[in-house]
């Protein structure tokens, strides 16, 4: 009963934490100045950006009164679960890296602070779309945007030439190319549909114009099962059923090998793709190129977001102002942005940041205009508001699409399941839903 013990242990810790913090009451939003306590303010920061300790060292040297300690996290859903558990237990870090889609869950759990007052200056540094992701369409500001993940099409330029395939401009052309590749070499697929990556699917749905959640007055509207999403689902379902698109999930050893061996020719992914490709498919160095995602209608120009994250301040942090100051510096200061790009391989969300990206990633050394392309594509990306129980929706995606892929059944039914599961969970928890 390992998990059971784990859960009870966590629960025990939670009770102790609650007992300890019970007397202190709500921390004031304005504490955080070094003057209050005499010594320097110390902040803890959970992040998975590589080399963040080097970036923070620069801050610590310039700001002896606010010292930040970095705690390296694994990232992904586990990091979010860990933060929520720590927040519930009463001992969260002061600052946390929060993926955009997880932010509403953090807010709904009361785990992150509204830092509207402290970030008034930062607002102008970001585009409207990305700023909306941290306000959730309300007056509050729950985080400072850090990086974003506009989606684009990564493809093997050399193999496209070998098989005589044009870069697909529309999803119809992509499907045609998928069939053509299969005809030329039965060992090779144009791409794969991943039933493990709801964020990827959400990005494709955004491109098609989906709006999975929205706030209607005092009620949530859930529209996972909308026209655009169904269109995306039935498109991929058709290709998988036809056998012209592979169905192995992304980020598995098998997928890595197929990428490395040149048995997968495209990957519709996000701007952070080069890091993944260079570590998972080292043999492809210099052979990949980027293009905009294929469009649903010729002449359109849309993209979606896969991933991207922000820096949030824990509601329980006793040094909220200091934490917000650091979060603003980290994501808007030119020196910090330079470090984020150079040391952390981050694609900054701030408008200033994009201009700082000049030298193409080493893996794409044959494509010197990589960042120019990325910036142009990024400008066409449209996102949507994420709901307060994205984790439920994403889990439903994995289970429902796993099954749909295995059974070769209707993908739109899986989308229906996502919708139903999300609505049922929100209703059970008591959210007001608009119908």
């Amino acid at each position, binding site marked *: *009963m390992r998990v059971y013990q784990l859960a009870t242990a966590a*629960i025990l810790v939670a009770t102790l934490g609650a007992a300890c913090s019970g007397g202190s009451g709500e921390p004031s939003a304005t504490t955080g100045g070094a003057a209050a306590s005499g010594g320097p303010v110390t902040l803890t920061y959970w992040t998975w950006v590589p080399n963040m300790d080097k970036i923070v060292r620069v801050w610590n040297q310039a700001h002896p009164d606010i010292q930040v300690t970095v705690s390296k996290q694994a990232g992904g859903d586990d990091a979010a*679960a860990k933060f929520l558990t720590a927040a519930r237990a009463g001992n969260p870090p002061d600052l946390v890296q929060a993926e955009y889609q997880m932010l509403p869950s953090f807010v709904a759990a009361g785990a992150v602070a509204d830092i509207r007052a402290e970030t008034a200056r930062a607002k102008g540094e970001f585009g409207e779309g990305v700023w909306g992701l941290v306000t*959730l369409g309300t007056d509050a500001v729950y985080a400072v945007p850090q990086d974003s993940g506009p989606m684009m099409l990564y493809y093997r330029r050399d193999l496209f030439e070998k098989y005589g395939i044009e870069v697909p401009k529309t999803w119809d052309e992509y499907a045609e190319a998928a069939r053509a590749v299969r005809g030329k070499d039965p060992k090779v697929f144009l791409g794969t549909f991943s039933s493990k990556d709801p964020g990827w699917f959400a990005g494709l749905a955004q491109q098609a114009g989906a709006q999975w959640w929205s706030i209607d007055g005092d009620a949530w509207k859930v529209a996972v099962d909308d026209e655009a999403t169904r269109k995306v689902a039935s498109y991929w379902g058709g290709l998988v059923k036809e056998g012209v698109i592979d169905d192995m999930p992304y980020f*598995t*050893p098998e997928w890595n090998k197929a990428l490395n061996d040149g048995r997968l020719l495209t990957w519709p992914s996000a701007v952070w793709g080069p890091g993944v490709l260079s570590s998972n498919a080292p043999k492809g160095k210099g052979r990949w190129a980027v293009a905009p995602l294929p469009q649903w209608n010729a002449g359109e120009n849309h993209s979606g977001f896969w991933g991207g994250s922000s820096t949030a301040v824990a509601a329980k942090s006793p040094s909220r102002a200091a934490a917000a100051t650091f979060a603003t510096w980290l994501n808007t200061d030119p020196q910090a942005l330079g470090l984020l790009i150079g040391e952390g391989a981050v694609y900054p969300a701030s408008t200033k940041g994009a201009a700082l990206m000049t030298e193409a990633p080493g893996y794409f050394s044959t494509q010197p205009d990589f960042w120019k392309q990325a910036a142009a594509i990024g400008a066409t990306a449209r996102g949507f508001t994420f709901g*307060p129980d994205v*984790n439920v929706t994403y889990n439903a995606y994995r289970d429902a699409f*796993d099954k749909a892929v295995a059974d070769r059944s209707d993908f739109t039914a899986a989308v229906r399941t996502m919708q139903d599961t999300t609505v049922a969970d929100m209703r059970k928890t008591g*959210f007001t839903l608009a119908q």
Partner: protein
Amino acid sequence: MTTRPLTTRPVTTRTRKGAPRAGAVPYLFLAPAMVLFTLFMALPIGYTGYLSLRRTKVSGLGLGAGARTEVFAGLGNYAAAIGDGELWAGWLRVLGYGALVLALMLGLALVFALMLDAAHVRLARITRISIYLPYAVPGVAATLMWGFLYLPGLSPFGDHPFLGAGLVTFSMANVAVWGGTGFNMLVLYTNLRAVPREYYEAARIDGAGELAIALRIKIPILVPAIVLTTVFSVVATIQVFTEPTTLRPLTNTISSTWSPLMKVYRDAFVTGDLHSAAATSMVIAGISLVVSLGFLRIVKNHAFGED
């Protein structure tokens, strides 16, 4: 010579002089165990029970402070846990998996133990250690290793759908059998070594061969140990979590609620509903208690040699 027991004197002394002390001393010895039990078993279980009777209630959009409160839920979480078809489907999957693992693992353990114990086996020590060795490999590492061996495209066994819908239960059972056989074999083997060799000599004089000795003498003697290893294995099977959880990212045939414990994990850490998770874990704990006690009751006479 008197045959008065030697203990009489000390006992009377103690009852006369040390009686008040003797009352406290046993409790003093028990205290550390009791304190640890209360802190790390009774309290968490009690708190889990408390949590399972409550739920989170959100109002409006659920954003902002105070939108989320904890309220009494009565037996609602239990009703939901018991009424959840996924949980029972999980039990069914685990039942099939468990039948495979129990039969294969314990069968192999018994065969290996008997073979190693047979007379004139060469290299018994090396063989014993090599069969036991997989048990020393942590479950996650073992499962990952097998996962790589199963993946089409990477597998040295060729391009077979080891993780496909038809084979995935067998593939998982294989990992558990590989890891658990050695341990169970060792328990049985140790029991066999404790049997007086005279039994076998007598049997041989009566004309019994190795097979007859194994079937007529060794296995009957082993019954209590077999019952013990079965109970351990049943409990371990009910708790199956590591294998499916580790293999899940590699295939689309294992859902997030494949086994009952995975559902608890999902509720607690993926969807963030501690209250449902607490109720479900209480249900699972109850079922495993009933199953293991029920099994012990059925085989009671064999297990403890009672009549």
